[in-house]
Every structure is written in C-alpha cells, then in structure tokens.
C-alpha cells in the first residue's frame, strides 16, 4: 500500500511537503513571515481539498475503481491502507509546522474523503470540501475536530463497504452472487448511476 | 439483377471480382442485354465496396464491350457472352456431367478433377 500510495499521490505529497518546509524554515525576511502565517492557517484546508477530496472522487471519475477494487486486496483494506499512509504523512507535516492543527488536518481529510465518496467528481468534491471544512474549522476546537474527523471516517468506511459490495462476485460453485445493491447505492440509484453500473459490471 | 460479393481474403483485386461476377451472370443468363446494372451508390451501400472499385469494374466491362454507360440513366448490359446456342450449351453440359461421373468412378476427388481441368485449360502437356 505504501508503494501504491506514494506512486499515485507523490506529486501532491511532495508539493505539500515543500509548502510545509516553506512554513517551517525560519526566514530572515518579514515578508515571508506572512506567507508562513497563511500556510499555517490554511494547511489543514490544503490537506482537505487536495489530499482528501480527490482520493475517492478521482477513482470514481476515471473509473479506475474497477481496477483498484478488482484486485485481491479488498476495497476496504485498499482504502484503509491508503488512508493510513496519507494520514501518517500529513500528520507528520502538520506536527512539523503547527502541532495544534493536527486535529483540523484529520477533520479536513475525513471531510474530503467523504465528500469525494458522495459527490464522485473531483472538482465538485473539492468545492464541497472547502465549504464544509471552512464552516467546521471556524466553529470547532482541535479536539472536537479530531473526534468529528474520526466519526466521519467511520461513516466513510461504512459507506464504502456498501458501495464496494455492489461489485457482483461469483461464488466458488459458479452461482452468481446476488447483485447486492447496498442501501447507499439504492439511495443514489439515479438513472445515471444505475446505467453505468450495469454496463461496467 | 446481380448482387455483388467481394471475397476480401482473395488475392484477386476487388474490381476484377466484380467484373467476373457480371460476366458470370451474363453467361448464366441472369443478366440479359438491356438489363441495367445496379448504380455505383447501390453497390457501395449493399456490398461495402469502394465506389472507385465499382467504377473501375464497370469501366473494364465497358471497354470489353459487354456493357454500355448511357448518359444520366446508368449502365446497361449490351452484349451476350459465349457464341454457343443454348441447346449446344446444354449438350456440352450433359457430356461433361457424364465425364465427371466417370472420373469419380476412377477415384478422383473434386480437387483432383479441378486440377485436371485447370491443367487442360492452361494448355499443359495433356492438353490440346
């Protein structure tokens, strides 16, 4: 999972790391102080919008989830593995620049991932994430944020299990497994979703 | 009316295949003088052959004197093929059928007969 996560997200990882480095290095100029201030304040937002939101939305949009979830690694462990690696990475970066913000970063990531799963389109998910995150960020303290983030993450995992189960799997004796559309898919079962689902399955 | 069919895997250029099919139809009496050949557009739409190929085939037939293009109305069959009268043709066919039965009795397969006929036609050592 570490390799896959690095391979798929290295650009955004490196860019964010550079951003964090800019925020951490003590510059002589007073000018950069303000930039550092902005980065510190907005870092959790960057994690939310650029790390969280595209994680699932991109897979849906590019239809690569058939690839990602068609391997022996189950969708759930795929998701957990990726999240673990990314959470570790951004927590480390956040600790470096502003330890108090870790809770916000966690919340941002969770909001991003969940909106990606619901909206399923990268740009729209990013916009939704930005809106929701700003609203939450202003109103919540770091601890409450971390708790809410964890809760949202659990919600995401539950939803993902339902969505991923809609992949028809045969059983060993050749009888096809029930299509098993989860409540979530049924909820979203607009004409569009149903059609694309049937065609690709 | 003829319906053209092109064997795409054949080494014979498509326009020659078309020409051959017209000749065959004329020979077998399916096309008679005065009959109109299908328009180029029709052949393209029904047989999936390039219009240039059809035009080329029709031009060859025209040069051979078998068909004529009438301005604005299409291509018509002009002449018949083969000089033999129908009854002569019938007699020859009967004889040949008898010969084929003989050949089969002698143990020849269809392929062998085919080879033999080809050899005779191309003027090989056993030919005329």
């Amino acid at each position: 999972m570490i390799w896959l996560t690095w391979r798929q997200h290295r650009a955004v990882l490196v860019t964010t790391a550079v951003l964090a480095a800019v925020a951490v290095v003590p510059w002589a100029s007073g000018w950069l102080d303000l930039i550092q201030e902005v980065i510190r304040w907005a870092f959790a937002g960057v994690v939310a919008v650029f790390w969280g939101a595209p994680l699932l939305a991109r897979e849906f949009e590019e239809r690569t989830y058939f690839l990602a979830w068609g391997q022996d690694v189950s969708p759930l462990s795929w998701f957990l593995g990726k999240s673990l690696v990314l959470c570790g990475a951004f927590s480390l970066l956040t600790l470096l620049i502003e330890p108090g913000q870790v809770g916000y970063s966690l919340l941002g990531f969770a909001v991003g991932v969940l909106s990606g799963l619901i909206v399923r389109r990268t740009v729209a998910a990013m916009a939704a994430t930005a809106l929701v995150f700003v609203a939450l960020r202003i109103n919540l303290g770091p601890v409450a944020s971390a708790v809410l983030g964890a809760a949202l993450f659990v919600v995401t995992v539950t939803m993902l299990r339902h969505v991923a189960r809609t992949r028809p799997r045969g059983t060993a004796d050749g009888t096809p497994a029930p299509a098993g559309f989860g409540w979530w898919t049924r909820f979203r079962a607009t004409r569009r979703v149903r059609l694309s689902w049937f065609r690709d399955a | 009316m003829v319906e053209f069919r092109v064997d795409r895997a054949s080494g014979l250029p498509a326009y020659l295949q078309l020409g051959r099919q017209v000749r065959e139809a004329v020979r077998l009496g399916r096309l008679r003088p005065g009959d109109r050949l299908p328009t180029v557009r029709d052949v393209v739409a029904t047989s999936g052959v390039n219009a240039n190929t059809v035009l080329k085939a029709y031009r060859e037939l025209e040069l051979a004197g078998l068909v004529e293009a009438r301005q604005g109305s299409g291509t018509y069959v002009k002449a018949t093929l083969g000089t033999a009268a129908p009854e002569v043709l019938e007699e020859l066919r009967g004889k040949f059928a008898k010969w084929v039965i003989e050949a089969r009795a002698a143990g020849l397969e269809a392929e062998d007969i085919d080879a033999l006929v080809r050899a005779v036609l191309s003027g090989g050592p056993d030919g005329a």
Partner: protein
Amino acid sequence: MTVRVENVSKWALHHCSFELPAGSVTALVGANGAGKTTLLNILAGHLPADFGHVAVAGRVAFVPQDKPMYKGFTPLDVLKFGGHMNKVWDEYRAHSWLHRYRVPLKLRCGDLSGGQRAHVAFALALGSRPDVLLLDEPLAELDPLARRKVVRDLLAEVADTGMTLLYSTHVVAELGGVADRLLLLSDGKLLVDGDTDELLGEHLEIVGPAADEPPVAGEVVLARHQQRQSSFVVRCPESAVVEEPWTARPVTLEELVVAHLEAAA
C-alpha cells in the same frame, strides 16, 4: 490532391511523403507504435510536425481512437455543438447516422456504450461535411456485424460527398475492396504507398527449387529458403511470366502486408 504530406518527421515518424487524391479511400496500416496516430494527429492539425510540411485542401474532421466526447452531453447536445461550432453543418446527415445505429439521443454520452459513443463521434465528424475525414482505428469498439455496416455506410458517405477518407486499421483482412489505397508504416517509415489493386497485381509469391534469386526480375520483398525449396514474395511488372518448374500465385493483401512488415523487422 487533397492531402499532401512532404517529408514529415515527428517523434516516431521519419521523412514520410505521400499524396492522396480527392475522393480516395486510404487504409493506413502498421504495427502498434509505427506512428499512425502521430501522422493522423499531424494531418488533423493537433500536432505540429518537427520537420517537413503537411497540406490539406479543405476542412478536416478527425475521430481519435479513444473517441473522446463530453461525458455530460447527450447525443442531441453533441449535434447542437456541431451545429454551433461549424460553418457547414448537415444536421440531417448526423442525425440519420445516430438514428441508423439506434443511439439513444437523450442519455449522457458518459452512459453510452463504447460502440454507441463511437457512433456519436462519427455523427459529429460526418455532420460537419468534411473534405477530408481522418479516422483512427474507427472499428475497434464495434462488433463484427456493426463493422461491416459502418464500413458500408462510410463508403456510401464517401460516394455521396466525394470526401477523402484516411483511416488506420489493424484488420488487414477486411481491407479488400474497401480501401483503394494502402499506406504501410513500419517504425515511422513508409514502406508501401499505392493503389491496392495495382499492388495486388504487382506482388507474386513464387515457389520453386532452392535458389538464391527468383526467376523473374523485380524487387524481392521477402525470401524464404528451405532445403529443397525457395519461396519469394516479389514485386514485379504484371506482365512477368514464370517458367517451369517455378509456380506463381497472387498474394492476398494480408500476405502482402505481412511480407513487407516481416522484411522490415
């Protein structure tokens, strides 16, 4: 001439030159990575050539291999798009193509099957009444039945409008009678460029006793030698006569293409 390519080089392509007469149907054949898509992209104006130049008389329409289309548009939107974005637009032609292949007009293109999306792309290209139509692997997504129908209909469009059609394909077996010209690319070099009928007439497979040279004068495309037998694919004048003990046989388009590709490899 509606299409002229002079000494064009770009990436895999090396100094390609050819011309296509108006109203011709040309098949562009070559192995994967031979440069077919690059060539079509250059002709469509989406890539500038590094060297040499390309001239196209009139308006070009290009349908890429993956048939990109706005996912959120319905086929009706695509027709509207074509109407808005083109100086010449034949709504009837585009619409009847979609109708003929029963493409649902009110579904989003993202929800259509690969074949249906291909038809939307064809309809857009044909509706703009191009003088030159470039198709990259047009038949790849289609089932065998639809392939025949599409080929027939495309040829009918060519016959009706007199446009020039250049398409790339892997399926050489389906070329006979369809393409009147053949362009064979290998590793970016143009191996064969000519009228398919003439090419078929010129190429012979000659088989006979072991020998270094074929019994007729001409360009040896491919020579195979076994202990007691040699076979040659030779490009020679159509009037060439082969004497005993050699036997000659016309080659099919597929054999011709394979022989050239094998010789180039």
